[in-house]
């Protein structure tokens, strides 16, 4: 029975090991080869990149990236400026409804949160994207929770591109310390009626403001980080609505109209109509002051329980027309050089997702709420105030 002698077992094991080893080598080689194929295939293509177009510095940054990509890879990057990326999600959905499985209009998307969630659920995104991008190995996935997007696992459908931290830019002297509380905000509104406002939810920054308030007012209740249950909604939300009922009459236009988004809010801060504006980019204030878009007399604040921190991503639709070129663009955008320029407040100031030598310290962080709260907050808010 045991006629299988030791040497032969050894030989077999050795053979198996060799086979495995060669398989690994072959795999590595084929990955490299695959990538050079991808780069080859990408040459001469145009990538239609659907991304929010409302920020001058982001647009400038993408133009810089476009010039670089064109020089190095012969790819022309076309920034399709949308006022809300949900437009792109809508387009993909209608393509799906019409049965269009290839030749889609969108090659690359800048998304996160509910938009990602929706596209992932409808299976509209290119799978295994993360591993297909060679530079993904440099991502700070161990230190920062980049692989869950608003509580939804990324599962390779998108590639982290940058990080956001909710912060408040206010006129000098408005608040005593960098960390502020909802009570301080309300007191300020009472002293300066008509001078505060927030981007109208479902704008993403407006909703994040609501989330920050909720975190503070609900004493960071742990149920905020789980799928919201009916009882959690019943327990936690009323205190927020009470607060807003007090705040709204003290807001700009008595809370009957709101800035459409944070960019508009920032413009009104620059005009002096508002005394505070919100941003998701911790470097935005420095960058705007430097560009002459905000006066020098502004200071950065954050909510005392910490700045809500989340990441934003790049994804490729399943029906994209130029997938190879889109991957090359992603690989470039998460490279050290591209990330360093992005993090530089002279250009964009968006925190990097790869390790850089000189990275700005982040604000004290607060966890992002579970994605389910987003929808609840927005629906209730609209039902109450619209």
């Amino acid at each position, binding site marked *: 029975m045991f006629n299988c002698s030791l040497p032969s077992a050894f030989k077999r094991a050795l053979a198996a090991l060799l086979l495995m080893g060669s398989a690994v080598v072959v795999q590595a080689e084929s990955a490299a080869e695959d990538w050079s194929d991808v780069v080859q295939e990408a040459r001469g293509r145009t990538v239609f990149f659907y991304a929010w*177009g*409302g920020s001058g510095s982001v647009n400038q940054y993408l133009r810089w990236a476009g010039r670089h990509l064109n020089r190095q890879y012969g790819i022309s990057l076309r920034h399709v*400026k*949308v*006022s809300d990326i*949900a437009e792109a999600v809508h387009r993909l959905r209608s393509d799906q409804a*019409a049965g269009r499985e290839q030749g889609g209009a969108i090659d690359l998307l800048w998304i996160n949160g509910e*938009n990602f969630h929706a596209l992932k659920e409808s299976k509209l995104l290119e799978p295994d994207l993360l591993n297909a991008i060679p530079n993904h190995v440099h991502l700070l996935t161990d230190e920062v929770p980049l692989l869950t997007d608003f509580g939804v696992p990324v599962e390779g459908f998108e590639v982290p591109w940058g990080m956001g931290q909710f912060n408040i830019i206010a006129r000098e002297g408005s608040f005593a310390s960098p960390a502020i509380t909802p009570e301080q905000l309300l007191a300020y509104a009472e002293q300066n009626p008509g001078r505060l406002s927030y981007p109208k939810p479902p704008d993403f920054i407006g909703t994040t403001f609501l989330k920050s308030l909720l975190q503070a007012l609900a004493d960071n209740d742990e149920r905020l980080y789980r799928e919201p249950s009916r009882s959690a909604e019943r327990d936690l939300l009323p205190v927020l609505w009470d607060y807003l009922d007090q705040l709204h009459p003290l807001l700009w236009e008595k809370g009957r109209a709101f800035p459409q988004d944070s960019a508009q809010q920032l413009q009104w801060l620059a005009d002096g109509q508002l005394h505070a504006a919100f941003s998701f980019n911790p470097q935005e204030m420095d960058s705007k002051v430097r560009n002459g878009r905000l006066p020098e007399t502004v200071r950065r604040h954050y909510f005392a329980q910490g700045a809500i921190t989340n990441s934003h991503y790049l994804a490729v639709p399943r029906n994209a027309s130029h997938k190879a070129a889109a991957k090359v663009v992603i690989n470039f955008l998460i490279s050290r050089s591209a990330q360093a320029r992005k993090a530089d407040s002279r250009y964009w100031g968006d925190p990097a997702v790869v390790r850089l030598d000189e990275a700005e310290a982040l604000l004290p962080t607060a966890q992002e709420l579970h994605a389910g709260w987003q929808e609840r907050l927005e629906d209730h808010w609209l039902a109450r105030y619209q």
Partner: protein
Amino acid sequence: MARALPVSTTLHATAGLCLAFLLLVPVMIALWPYVGQMVGLNPEVVSQFVRSPGLASAIGYSLLLATVAPLLACYVAVAFSFHGARRLLGWLAPLLSIPHLAFAVGVLFLFSPTGWLVRGLHSLFGVFDTPPASGLLADRSLFTLLWVLLLKEIPFLLLMIQSALTQIPAERYLQAGQTLGHSRLASWWQLVVPELLTRLRLPMAAVVVYTLSVVDVPLLIGPNLPGVWAQQVFQWQQDFASESAYSALLGSLVLLMLALALLWLNRQHERLYAGLLRWHRRTDAKMPVGLSTLGRLLQSVARLWLPLMAVFALGVTVALIVWSLAANWFYPDLLPGAFSLNTWRSEWPFLAPLLWQTVGLALISASVGLVAALVCLEYQARREWYWPQWLLLLGLLLPQLPLVMGWQFGLSALRLNPHWGWVLWAHCVFTFPYAYLMLSGDYRRFNRRWLLAGQSLGYSAPACWFRILLPILKQPILYAWVIAFSVSVAQYLPTQLLGAGRVVTITTEAVNIGSGGDRRLLGLYALWQMLLPLALLLLAALINRRTRQRCASL
């Protein structure tokens, strides 16, 4: 009168093609998704739609806006026309060709709480150390929207009144009224205006539907808690949740119904006016003091309109230029801290291709629209049988959003890629009715005996058309071309939805950049949106003058 010229087969076929591709096919394609998707409707979807937050206010805003703005514009225009400014056309053309969006941006730069007016008051009198919290035109409100649309509709209605007045023996009416002992002004309002209102029915309908369904202007300056109805439907249409698709569909149906209701009201307007007049005459009641004061007030406001509008237009242009050149400009400085060419320099490489794209689309679609309008008019003139005007103007009388949504769905279902050609075609659908509306009055007044005379001298029918009709109607034709061009430049929805970002024009870019609130970029883009039609207008004026000089020297 005998038929002046025979209807050739080519003309017959071309007119048929124009109608098919610019009228029938677009409307048919737009109907398709409604028929197709209505099947999926169930009570739950409908009840969710009915419960959408802000539904009633949004509809209320739209109804208010689409009733008040056109009516006020109409009466200001009618009151102004009493003064019978002869050289009005020269003034109207540039005012008319400024796109709504650029005008809206400029008006905000002037009259918002941090606009030039407030800054000026601050530097003169030291008032408003901080910008007034509310006052003048808030950056976002229904009131601001109403003002912008009202001011912008007046030139169009004035032009239409000028055209209508050539069909009414107004002077004789006025004289007849005066011999009966009425003042000239009373005769105007009692004898000429009722007739005028009847003839303004279609232009008013176009204005009402435009006000109801415009999306780009409310997106920038309208209220947002909630927005006006069209904006709400547009947002549903852009939203991806599957319930939103049904809401958008039902919402656009509601938009259609609102349009129908308002068109019906618009038709009652002239009857109501005539009825009130009859009642007033029968009862021989004295005009209520309030009403006559209101009338006098209106008359004086109307007299001020032209100088005011000229100052506004100039102010708008200067404000756009200064913002595009501002380096850092904070309240309450009257002028930027420094001027710089940075915005121009960094944007120009991206702006220039956009401008070419916009001009290309606009030139072609304006020319197609103009030629189609001419073909249809000539065909009808030869047949001596005119189609009902509302049918030809269907593109203006249907709200734009449901039409374009239908086309987008159709293209997607037919697996057609977003393409320049589709956008061009969509633009033509809208340039055609405007060109037709601008031209039809003058064209139908043209004395066709000249053509007959030409033929009796041995010229062929086309030769007569080119050598007699074209030179005589040159001015209105050039003018219709400029307006069609301006209509195409200002198209937001068709370009945005059918172009899918592949086809970008100055207008779509201005709205998308406007979402970022950077005044300098917005100033630059709005400035160019305004300059393009003005440039063509200048060109048309030059062409017109050259030919007139040539004619004079002959």
